Every structure is written in C-alpha cells, then in structure tokens.
C-alpha cells in the first residue's frame, strides 16, 4: 500500500501540474486585449503571403533518426533491469549483456556504413 501511495502522489501531481500553466494563461485571457483581424491572424512568414499547403513533404531522414532512436529506446526495457540487478550477477550476465549490446551496436554500424546517419 505504501508503494501505491507514492504513485497516488504522482497521480495527483499529474492532475495538478496542468493547473500551474493553465492559470496564468487563463488570467492573461481575461486581462489581455483581443482584437483579432484577418491580417493579424494570417500565418507568419516574414511578411509574405504563405504559399500552398503547410504540410509540405518532409525528408525521410527524420524518420530514420526516429527509427534508430526507437530501437535504442526499446533496448532500455532490457538494459535497465539488467543494470539494476547487475551487482548481484556473475560473469555470465556480463556476457549476455555484452552480446545484447553488441548486436545492437551492429545495427548502428550498419546505419553508419550506409550513410544513414548523415544529415542530408
């Protein structure tokens, strides 16, 4: 129960945290002037009318970075429990962890070789 109490704290924190930024924005809404007009509301582009769709097509490189990040992020699921238990483990655990990290480093080396890490 004590553990869940800690999480109750986090839960209340999640519920309360958004009040802190919301309150000043709400206050500002009451105080600040609001005189919208089409020119003011137009999309900001250094004084020029914006041309075409905002959602222009993006480079695939963004996706590749996201992808490599995802793989390393998922790796954390296994590496953190491994690290927490590490001091109680023997050399076999080191070997297992080494192989695990080595296989993933392989993927990074592959991406490097294929120039997938370059910002183009």
């Amino acid at each position, binding site marked *: 129960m004590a553990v869940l109490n800690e999480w109750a704290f986090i839960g209340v924190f999640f519920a309360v945290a958004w009040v802190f930024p919301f309150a000043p924005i709400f206050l500002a809404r009451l105080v600040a002037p609001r005189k919208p007009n089409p020119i003011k509301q137009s999309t900001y582009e250094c004084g020029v009318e914006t041309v075409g769709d905002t959602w222009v097509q993006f480079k*695939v490189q963004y*996706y590749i970075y996201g*992808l490599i990040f*995802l*793989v390393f*992020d*998922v790796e954390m*699921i*296994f590496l953190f429990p491994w690290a927490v238990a590490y001091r109680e483990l023997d050399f076999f655990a080191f070997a297992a962890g080494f192989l695990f990290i080595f296989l993933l480093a392989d993927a990074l080396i592959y991406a490097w070789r294929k120039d997938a890490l370059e910002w183009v």
Partner: protein
Amino acid sequence: MIPLWMYLLVAAALFCMGAYAVLARRNAVAILMGVELMLNAVNINLVGFWRYQQPLNMAGQAFAAFVFVIAAAEAAVGLAIIISVYRQRKSVIPDEADTLKG
C-alpha cells in the same frame, strides 16, 4: 482491489477496437495504430494475469517486455513500408497497392 475480470474486459474492448481499425480503416497508418492497440490489449492481459495469478514468476513481465519489442519492430518496419509504398504509388491505401511488382 479491482477484480481481474474488469481489466480483462477493458482489454477485450481495446482488442476489438484495434481489430476493427485493422479491418475497416482505409489508411495504412491507421491500420498500424489498430495493431498497436491490439498489442496493448495483449499486454494488459499479460500483466493482469501475472499480477493476479503468478506475481512471483517473471513470465508475465518478461513476455510483456517482449511484446514491446514486437510492437516496436512492427511499427518501425510497417511505417517504413508505408513510406516506401507512398513514394512509389503516392498512396497510403492498402487496397490500391495491389501489384507485387515494385
């Protein structure tokens, strides 16, 4: 505590939503989101059964961790395929990607 069957019920509903998205949505990205929902429903079940039946055996948590890996790999490759197909055919609708030749 909340009885186990309530977790299972929510998981079942989530699974069916995912299944519906996979079967009925037209956009490939939406289909992939459906798959993610289904995998999450599976994870709720795994962790639920682990907590209520075998809390000292690591099987439930370990399997849930492996499901994360599957979900990540599936999202990575699935989205890569969608991007690639879009480049070739300018479409993200699976029904229209009906030739095997690239």
